[in-house]
């Protein structure tokens, strides 16, 4: 199978702090990959490499190559904005813009200059249906997205991401700010999204990694310790460190 995302010997430094060490990995189309590991091990950093969100950090420096659809995304010729459209991102805390639900969803299209009302309407309906809150919000699309509950907000944020038709969706602890019930609904959503998207999710919650992902990568101190089938990793990890981590015999 052809890799959707392929990292080759990636190293990341923040200043002199070497936070990603020689990581190579391949992620295939339409799979859900989870990144787990102790706090500060570099999960978020690695995830944010994939849509170049680390570029904003001044001390950030990276070596190695990352290919998405066979394109080196750290190539100088790459248009970062285009890349980010292709590689959507969902964040830890729901972060809707303080605008209406509708405007939140179409944000990405608006900044592309799309004004066609019909087209926008369609996208709103489609994506909100995709994330499963169309029925709940269709009558209040013009209300502020901030008035929604946390779980609904996060869904709107996901819809917003989907609206620009990415093929990869990155999620950095997307449910850590949510209550268990909202978390469950988001997990279900992720599980169902994978038929259309390649999803990479960072999570602190090991059960979550277990529940939603096909494969799981365990990071430790910037190194990729183990990357294998999720069931395998949780029932029979190959590396002792992984086992120590997932069984809580750690630190």
């Amino acid at each position, binding site marked *: 199978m052809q890799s959707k995302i392929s990292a080759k010997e990636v190293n990341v430094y923040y200043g002199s702090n070497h936070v990603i060490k020689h990581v190579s990995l391949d992620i295939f189309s339409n799979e859900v990959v989870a990144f787990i590991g102790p706090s500060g091990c570099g999960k978020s950093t690695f995830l944010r490499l994939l849509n170049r969100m680390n570029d904003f950090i001044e001390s950030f420096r990276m070596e190695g190559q990352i290919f998405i659809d066979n394109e080196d995304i750290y190539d100088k010729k790459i248009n970062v904005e285009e890349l980010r459209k292709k590689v959507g991102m969902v964040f830890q805390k729901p972060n809707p813009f303080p605008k209406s639900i509708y405007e939140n969803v179409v944000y990405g299209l608006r900044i592309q200059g799309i004004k066609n009302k019909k087209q926008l309407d369609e996208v709103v309906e489609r994506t909100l249906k995709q994330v499963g809150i169309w029925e709940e919000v269709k009558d209040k699309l013009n209300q502020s997205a901030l008035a929604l509950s946390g779980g609904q907000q996060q869904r709107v944020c996901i819809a917003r991401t989907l609206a620009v038709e990415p093929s990869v969706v990155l999620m950095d602890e997307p449910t850590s700010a949510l209550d268990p019930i909202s978390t*469950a609904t988001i*997990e*279900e959503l992720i*599980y169902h999204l994978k038929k259309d998207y390649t999803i990479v999710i960072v999570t602190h919650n090991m*059960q979550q990694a*277990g*529940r*939603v992902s096909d494969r799981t990568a365990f990071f430790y101190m910037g190194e990729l310790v183990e990357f294998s089938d*999720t*069931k395998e990793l*949780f*029932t029979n990890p190959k590396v002792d460190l992984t086992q120590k981590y997932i069984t809580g015999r750690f630190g």
Partner: protein
Amino acid sequence: MTHLEEEILKTKTETLKMFQIVIEQVENAYKALFTKDVALAMNVKDKEEQVHRMELEIEKQIENVFALFNPVAIDLRFLLAVLRVIYNLERIGDSTKSIAKIIINKKYILDEDIFNNINLNEIYESAFKSVLLAKQSFESEDVKVAYRLIEKNIDLEELCDEAQIKIASYIRNNPDKTDYGLSLLSMLRKIQRMHDQSKNIAREIVFYLEAKILKHQGKI
């Protein structure tokens, strides 16, 4: 439906499939036994492999659910019950294989007399019915059916005790047919086991549905 529910459902479906195969085995062994169909018996013996595979698959599946979904309460009980249900199913399957082996190995003409005398078919049918009941209660999650199965044992036990005594005296009277007698005895015991294991399954269903542990209450 949540992801966990899907997994649970899948486990159930798989288990029912295993039930189905085991039941076929029991049925086929019965047919082979009474129609002296050695080929069918061979078939039963070969199919045992499939039962084993299913057991392993379901076990693995359950292991994954444990590892990934942290099931509690009824879900947990269901999975634990299924673990033991398939164990018992596998043993029922084992029994059919043993029966099939006896049929295959002892290629002699049945001594219809003793055979009929001990009511083996009745016993077998009764045990078969137990297996069917077990499946039914599992499938419909009907605790009443399970209880019916658990309580229905007097008949069969009496029949078996009787048959055992008859076989013993048969051997005593026909020393030349000792082997045959022994086989019969072995077969009888397997059949009886099938019934016992069905009852074990029923007990697991009660545990799953009502969280009551009936195991070792009158177990053999």
